[in-house]
């Protein structure tokens, strides 16, 4: 019987704030894996996935990137959903049309408007802040570990992919995440990367050809699995596009990938 210990902890970030992270401990000498969440934050899914990973013999940490005091009441799942709902009426090609967008913004709640600020004019600040926060958690809690891994989903996948170009990870798993913005950064990746993609996820998948080009050019230890017929977030068993068959297959592959890159 595996005796896991879990708790909520805090780590300090660049602006002096303290953020929360969920930790599941397997044992002192076990490799450490960081789990980076979808846009919804530190959800039940992320916590339960962290436990699943820990059960395989890893120490796991999952940061709550929305745990600054001023963010906690804004970036709830309900508020994020409320900010998305009015966007349904806007065709994707109109998302960069200021006039059309203004009409939608009028329909947003006050918190929805705040969230939308981070989707629009503050999007770069948000992205850099998240990368910086993850980097601080890495330095505070992972750097001294001999073997290190990361896994991220959607937004967390993009963040994990970017962070793997900046910090040393022996194994990075990217679930339907954006590719690094500067593809040349991929040359700095030291460990293995496993990219998992949904077949019906055209936005995320658009940059895969450039990723493959860099993989070949820089001889990166990269593996990829595409699941035809699945949709974005197919792995999330609490979500709307969950696909049991693909999810179970991906999980087996993730475990094997980590065993090879973190345990051998």
């Amino acid at each position: 019987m595996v005796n896991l210990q879990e708790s909520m902890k805090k780590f300090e970030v660049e602006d002096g704030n303290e953020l929360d992270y969920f930790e599941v401990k397997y044992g002192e000498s076990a490799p450490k894996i960081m789990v980076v969440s979808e846009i919804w934050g530190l959800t039940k899914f992320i916590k339960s996935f962290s436990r699943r990973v820990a059960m395989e013999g890893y120490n796991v940490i999952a940061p709550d990137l929305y745990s600054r005091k001023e963010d906690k009441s804004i970036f709830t799942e309900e508020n994020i959903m409320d900010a998305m709902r009015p966007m349904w009426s806007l065709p994707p090609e109109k998302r960069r049309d200021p006039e059309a967008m203004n009409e939608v913004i009028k329909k947003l709640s006050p918190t929805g408007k705040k969230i939308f600020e981070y989707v629009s004019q503050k999007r770069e600040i948000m992205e850099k802040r998240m990368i910086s926060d993850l980097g601080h958690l890495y330095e505070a809690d992972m750097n001294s570990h001999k073997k290190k891994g990361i896994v991220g989903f959607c937004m967390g996948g993009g963040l994990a992919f970017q962070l793997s170009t900046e910090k040393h990870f022996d194994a990075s798993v990217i679930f339907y995440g954006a590719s690094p913005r500067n593809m040349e950064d991929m040359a700095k990746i030291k460990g293995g990367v496993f990219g998992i993609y949904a077949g019906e996820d055209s936005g995320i998948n658009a940059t895969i050809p450039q990723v493959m080009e860099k993989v070949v050019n820089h001889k990166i230890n990269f593996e990829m699995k595409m699941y035809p017929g699945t949709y974005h977030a197919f792995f999330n068993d609490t979500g709307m596009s969950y696909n049991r068959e693909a999810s179970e297959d991906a999980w087996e592959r993730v475990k094997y990938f980590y065993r090879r890159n973190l345990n051998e």
Partner: protein
Amino acid sequence: MSELKNDEEGIFDGCFYVWVDVTKKYMSKKDGKFNDYERIKD
């Protein structure tokens, strides 16, 4: 990390719009009710 160009999607905004499409696709069938995700309260 390079600066975001105006016509370029970043990680946060790109993911937001991916989810706008996902939630539109699935939740419109559920009368737009929010019942699939529950924020951890602790």
